[in-house]
């Protein structure tokens, strides 16, 4: 993107967001690596891994907000793209194990050895090279999204129908990846990783670096999203969200726009998945579960759809709540709280945390302006119509 695009795309909350993410991305790894363990300000490694996971979730949330918040496409299968990116990275990590697997086979991953694979399946070739895997991380989810979107948008599948078939897509992938014959390790998935680019995945340094990289990816993803939504294309997307057929009658090829943004979003989700896998140490078909995708949508709803910052914030808040409530005496009741959170947010904060905050700020501004100019401008805050 040109610098022009960059400056245009940054408003105040976006700047704060970027500063905070960049700050955390630098400070947390430094604190983890440089300060002595046990010191009050040292961030323990397990928290670094945890925050790294949150950062990946935040990218996923951004990718969902881009299509749902700005274009009204509610994908209930975005977890599929995330998981596919994760699998591409997982395959690279599996190949890196080499002969250090339990059976010591230099080529075949362990699960293939004990399931008597004679040779590496063709689709596993090339994943020993990082660049190839990295390409696949973007290409595979992107291609799936392109094919799926090309079919769906061209035939004008919209609203709940689209949501349901994205769910069918991820469910079908879930079942497929569960199959051991599919060649991706079945239910156990891919795990027991050793190295990434020659660095031990479990080393503190690698974890800190992965965290910093996730923050960087989050920043880049955020900038891309901002650039898209603040461009004229962003206006077209909102137009499609609010009045799809009107946009068509203005001469816009709606399906191309949807396809573009859907594919872009899937690629971002794939990158998020790829960063996620080395940090949590496993990728398995349950990432395809429709429930996961729905949950990711809920992060966006909690944070505030159509705000980008809100999506990332929602991902962190909900996942932090999950981490917090699944330990300790509250553990048996955490589902009650999570469920209640979802219900209450949709009922009481329909615009999400950031959306509500923005609305509040706008209305303050409006009142002041009204007082100052004595000019009535009551309903200055246009409420985005819910996409259907």
């Amino acid at each position: 993107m040109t610098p022009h695009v960059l400056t245009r795309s940054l408003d105040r909350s976006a700047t704060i967001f970027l500063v905070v993410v960049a700050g955390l991305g630098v400070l947390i790894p430094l604190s983890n690596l440089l300060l002595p363990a046990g010191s009050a300000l040292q961030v323990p490694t397990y928290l670094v891994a945890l925050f790294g996971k949150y950062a990946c979730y935040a990218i996923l949330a951004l990718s969902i907000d881009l299509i749902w918040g700005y274009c009204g496409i509610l994908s209930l299968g975005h977890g599929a793209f995330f998981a596919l990116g994760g699998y591409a990275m997982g395959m690279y990590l599996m190949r890196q194990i080499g002969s250090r697997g339990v059976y010591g086979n230099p080529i075949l991953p362990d699960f293939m050895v004990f399931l008597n694979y004679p040779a590496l399946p063709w689709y596993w070739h090339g994943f020993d090279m990082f660049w190839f895997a990295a390409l696949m991380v973007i290409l595979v989810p992107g291609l799936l999204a392109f094919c799926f979107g090309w079919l769906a948008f061209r035939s004008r599948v919209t609203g709940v129908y689209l949501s349901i078939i994205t769910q069918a897509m991820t469910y079908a992938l879930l079942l497929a990846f569960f199959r051991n014959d599919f060649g991706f390790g079945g239910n156990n998935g891919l795990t027991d990783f050793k190295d990434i680019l020659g660095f031990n995945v479990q080393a503190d340094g690698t974890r800190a670096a992965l965290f910093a990289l996730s923050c960087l990816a989050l920043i880049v993803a955020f900038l891309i999203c901002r650039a898209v939504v603040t461009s004229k294309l962003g206006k077209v997307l909102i137009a499609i969200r609010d009045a799809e057929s009107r946009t068509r009658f203005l001469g816009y090829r709606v399906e191309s726009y949807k396809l573009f943004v859907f594919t872009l979003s899937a690629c971002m989700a794939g990158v998020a998945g790829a960063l996620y896998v080395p940090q949590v140490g496993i990728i398995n078909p349950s990432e395809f579960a429709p429930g996961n995708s729905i949950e990711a949508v809920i992060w966006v709803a909690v944070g505030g759809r159509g705000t980008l910052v809100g999506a990332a914030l929602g991902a962190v808040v909900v996942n932090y709540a999950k981490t917090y409530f699944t330990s300790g005496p509250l553990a048996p009741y955490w589902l009650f709280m999570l469920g209640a959170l979802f219900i209450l947010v949709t009922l009481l904060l329909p615009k999400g945390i950031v959306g509500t905050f923005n609305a509040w700020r706008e209305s303050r501004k409006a009142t002041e302006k009204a007082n100052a100019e004595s000019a009535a401008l009551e309903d200055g805050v246009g409420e985005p119509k819910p996409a259907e």
Partner: protein
Amino acid sequence: MSANFLDRLRGLLLAILLAAAFAAPALAGPFEDAVAKFANDDFSDTDEAIGAVATSGNPLAFPIISALQEGRLSADPDTKKVFVTQADGKIIDAATGAAVDKLPDNAAAVRLNNRLRRAVEAALGGLTLLSPDPAKRIAAAQSVFKSHEESALSVIDGALAKETNKSVKAAFAEARAAILLYKSDATEVEKLEAVAIVKAKGDQEAMALLTGLGSDVPPNVARAAASAIASIQSNLQMWSMVQNAWYGLSLGSVLLLAAIGLAITFGVMGVINMAHGEMVMLGAYTTFVVQEVIRSRYPGLFDYSLLIAVPLAFLVAGAVGVAIERGIIRFLYGRPLETLLATWGLSLVLQQAVRTAFGPTNREVGNPSWMSGAFELGQITITYNRLWILCFTLAVFVILLAMLRYTALGLEMRAVTQNRRMAASMGIATSRVDALTFGLGSGIAGIAGVALSQIDNVSPNLGQSYIIDSFMVVVFGGVGNLWGTLVGAFTLGIANKFLEPVAGAVLGKIAILVLIILFIQKRPRGLFALRGRAVEA
């Protein structure tokens, strides 16, 4: 051991005839020793005891063996005394037949394993060939058909001559044919006749019998058997198509049942209710509670438990549905995707609530006797529970359809969903209609839970396994059209069942999902889509 037993069985059948003729009084000695062996709690001793008792010719043999089969035979390991608890609750000493007041404290039921259970069945088969009850005679003949035990031939011949009941006679003839087929010294003509009879029987058992035939049969017989196998096979092949169709209908009915409530809440009202599965689950748990109460208070009513559960489940799930509509959904009309999120949260809460209240494990919901078992229709087995569920589903569908068409509520419901403002201005209390419609959809989901409790787990996860399928059915069939849901469910059910034998259960399911995705491209609004201006609104 088992061969040993079979040797004795030959004697047994003769002995029974003798016993029947002379009604000789029991002699003390070997019989009592044999009976005492039941008390050793050792499977091989029990095996010997069965053989000895069955061949003893003692009139107590039948009560003892049938008591053994039904777990009413108990033994005291210390005194080696064995007791029969009769069906009427009276207890007798197995060795002497003398009445006993009560079982000793340390008496335990004589244990069986599968091998012994088969021995018992065979023994009873022999013992009941001459039973006055025709059903029992048929069962005995069938067990002889399976065992094709040569020693039974003379009894069968005798019985066949006297038999007047047509179907029993046919069963005897088949049993006789089975024996002859395996009898080494039967003539070729006899064997060929036997092949013809077995071929006419034409089912899987007949196939098993013919394929099990060794290589020592005359070439003519082998040829006849081979052609009989081929013909049975092609016959069975045809039946397997019928069978797949039936399985498809049955699966379709389950899908329809799970989806039909959703067709109301989602299809008619446009509410994406992710907690729909939990309504099904509530219905299933209602059934569980009803059965628990019946088991502890009114055990005689068990067969009616489902009939009692249906209205209760409707009320429970319906009431919860109304509460959900009033508490959550009514604030979210016009924002269908937000309802999706809120109801998803709700489904988590409901699941965990049930998990807390009833525990995380499966709960037992029994099948009433009329829901158990199966009957044969031609060469396919139709289980009663599936059949009843199919009938039940269709009944629910018809009632629902009639309700929507002919009742005031149905009219109001259609009015409100088509034009809310207009309906309100006509004096319809739209919010009441909304609540009732949602309650109706939920209540029907509850009823579905009653039926599903008969074939699936009753656990907090029950609803989750149906929610995706239900949405697929409704979307495939076309939102807002009950007939679409019906056709959608049966189409998916049948397609699934025809794919399953070819592709396997997992790939079959994946294929169905991919087909649905592609189908939606072709018809973005489902099978029975409404067309025209109203749709765009």
